[in-house]
């Protein structure tokens, strides 16, 4: 499809053409980063854009759907280098099954109570991916035929993949993996557990 | 001295006690031997070694060790189970197995009891075990067991007809239902019935495999679907009895097939006077040949589906068996 990343001029060219054509057919703005076409569409156009992608662009293969939590205040991991607009970015990649062209659709949702129409009607495979995104990011997918947690137990609280969600084991034992070498049994313990 | 022994054994009760003792040793022994044969043969077929360490050489003591292990296993009955039925199921299975030994002729006169309706009895008794299996499946209060038990019953419906009808050809040729009578008939015509009854023999062996619930007909157990079918809830010695019965049944059904179709204890060109001594060996040799085939099938074939077995039985085996009867009868009358 493309050549190696060392000659970006050549690599970008056919992709750019396809990205422009897609942006025209679907609406929204296309952007190419490292061989990946990202097509930003407004949240209210989400279902519409994907329907057009399937019907007009022949992108019939549903690859995946997930989200990114853009947050400035981060519980775990590194913070972003620069301030960003806090939001949930919903991503969905669809491809065709002939030349391997793929587009990652992207839409921005508000950070609190994100909600978007479900695309299960368009790509039936989105069912599980949307359930996963729902429980991991707290996104509500309107019109989802079978809502409910996919991985997590029913009683689980919180949305684990949000940046504000602490990694509980890390709270107990901070990273980077300070190795706790326990005292050898012969050596008397320095502190009395009873105390 | 010899006369006294004969006298003592001519007493009905003494001879009965002797027979019971003999069978009581034979059943576990055969179970162990065939179990070991299955282990070693399957290992050979799968380029493995099989049991190796127990007993020092070839792992010959493996099954004894397994038996001792089973002696120490806890005997669990599920809480929801129908306890009396659950406990009685292995008994019924083994009753069917032991009773089958009754009519197998090991040599001229070497038969536990030469019933005049021998083959009829054998066919009837051989389905008793299935009732035990159905009881085991139903009483376990387990969904897998229930399905396994029902499959076993469904299987009985499928194979029982072909099994019975396949035998009729031999009965027509022999003109008797006595098992030793059938062997004698083969001696008198000078060839084993399989020469003309090959269709009946094929049907009988297929149906016998289904009766034994061995691959390709092991749907009642079907580990990959029903976990362990009707055996799922069984543990310890009760579990072992089902296996003992399976191996002993392999022996008895092979022996019946050998008797009906392969000439039983008789082999052409072996002098008839020596059959008293060579007969049992000849029969065991034939049985081993047939059980080897069963083991071979088991490690070669995948499993049928229940509805495929029904189709096979009703649309292929039964019409074939009926045709076989009609042709055999016609030939018998015309010739």
């Amino acid at each position, binding site marked *: 499809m493309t050549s190696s990343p060392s000659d970006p001029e050549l690599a970008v060219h056919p992709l750019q053409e396809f990205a422009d054509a897609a942006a025209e057919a679907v609406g929204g703005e296309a952007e190419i980063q490292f061989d990946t076409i990202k097509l930003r569409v407004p949240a209210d156009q989400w279902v519409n854009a994907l329907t057009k992608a399937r019907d007009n662009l022949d992108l019939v293969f549903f690859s995946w759907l997930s989200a990114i939590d853009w947050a400035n205040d981060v519980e775990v991991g590194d913070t972003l280098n620069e301030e960003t607009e806090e939001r949930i970015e919903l991503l969905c990649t669809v491809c065709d099954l002939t030349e391997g062209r793929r587009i990652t659709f992207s839409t921005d949702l508000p950070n609190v109570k994100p909600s978007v129409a479900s695309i299960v009607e368009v790509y039936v495979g989105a069912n599980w991916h949307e359930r996963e995104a729902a429980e991991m990011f707290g996104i509500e997918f309107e019109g989802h035929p079978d809502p409910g947690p996919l991985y997590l137990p029913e009683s689980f609280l919180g949305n684990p993949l949000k940046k504000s969600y602490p990694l509980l084991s890390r709270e107990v034992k901070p990273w980077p993996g300070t190795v706790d070498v326990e005292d050898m049994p012969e050596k008397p313990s320095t502190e009395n557990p009873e105390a | 001295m010899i006369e006294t022994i004969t006298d003592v054994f001519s007493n009905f009760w003494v001879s009965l006690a002797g027979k019971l003792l003999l069978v009581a040793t034979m059943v576990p022994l055969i179970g162990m031997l065939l179990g070991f044969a299955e282990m070693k043969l399957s290992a050979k077929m799968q380029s493995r070694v099989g049991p190796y360490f127990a007993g020092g050489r070839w792992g010959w003591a493996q099954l004894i060790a397994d038996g001792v292990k089973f002696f120490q296993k806890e005997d669990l009955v599920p809480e929801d189970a129908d306890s009396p039925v659950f406990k009685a199921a292995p008994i019924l299975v083994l009753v069917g197995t032991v009773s089958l030994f009754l009519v197998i002729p090991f040599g001229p006169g070497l038969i536990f*009891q030469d019933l005049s309706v021998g083959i009829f009895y054998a066919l009837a008794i051989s389905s008793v075990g299935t009732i035990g299996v159905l009881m085991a499946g139903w009483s376990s209060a387990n969904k897998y067991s229930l399905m396994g038990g029902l499959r076993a019953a469904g299987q009985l419906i499928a194979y029982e007809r072909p099994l019975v009808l396949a035998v009729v050809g031999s009965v027509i040729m022999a003109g008797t239902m006595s098992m030793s009578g059938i062997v004698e008939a083969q001696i008198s015509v000078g060839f084993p019935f399989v020469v003309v009854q090959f269709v009946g023999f094929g049907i009988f062996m297929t149906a016998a495999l289904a009766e034994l619930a061995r691959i390709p007909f092991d749907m009642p157990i079907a580990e990959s679907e029903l976990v362990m079918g009707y055996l799922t809830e069984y543990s310890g010695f009760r579990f072992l009895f089902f296996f003992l019965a399976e191996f002993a049944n392999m022996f008895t059904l092979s022996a019946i097939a050998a008797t009906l179709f392969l000439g039983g204890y008789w082999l052409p060109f072996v002098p008839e006077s020596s059959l008293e001594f060579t007969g049992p060996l000849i029969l065991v040799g034939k049985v081993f040949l047939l059980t080897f085939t069963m083991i071979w099938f088991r490690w070669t074939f995948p499993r049928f589906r229940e509805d495929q077995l029904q189709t096979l039985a009703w649309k292929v085996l039964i019409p074939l068996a009926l045709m076989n009867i009609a042709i055999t009868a016609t030939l018998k009358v015309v010739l």
Partner: protein
Amino acid sequence: MSAYFESYLTVGAFAALGAVLVLGMLGVASILRPNNPTKAKRLTYECGVDAVGSGWSQTYVRYYVFGLLFVIFDVEAVFIFPWAIILEDLGVFGLVEMLVFIGILVLGLVYAIRKGVLQWE
């Protein structure tokens, strides 16, 4: 004691032996084995989760039509065996009679197949 009675006594004794074998071995095992049933051990196995509903569930025996046919064919076997033994004495008459009988059975089987009864629905 007549030979007839003796032979069926043997049948009974063999059947009893089967039961005695099981009970005897279980008796021996009961001396050797531990007995410590707990609630968890006695649970019904359902792939590692608590059983949904009761194990005493109803199920639809899909082969019941086969079962009906089975009974019919079973009765037929009872007729065939005595005939098979004395076929030589009966001669052509017996043969034709039985061929007609088998023919009727085959017709019935064909009818059942055509009707679609012999399909595992």
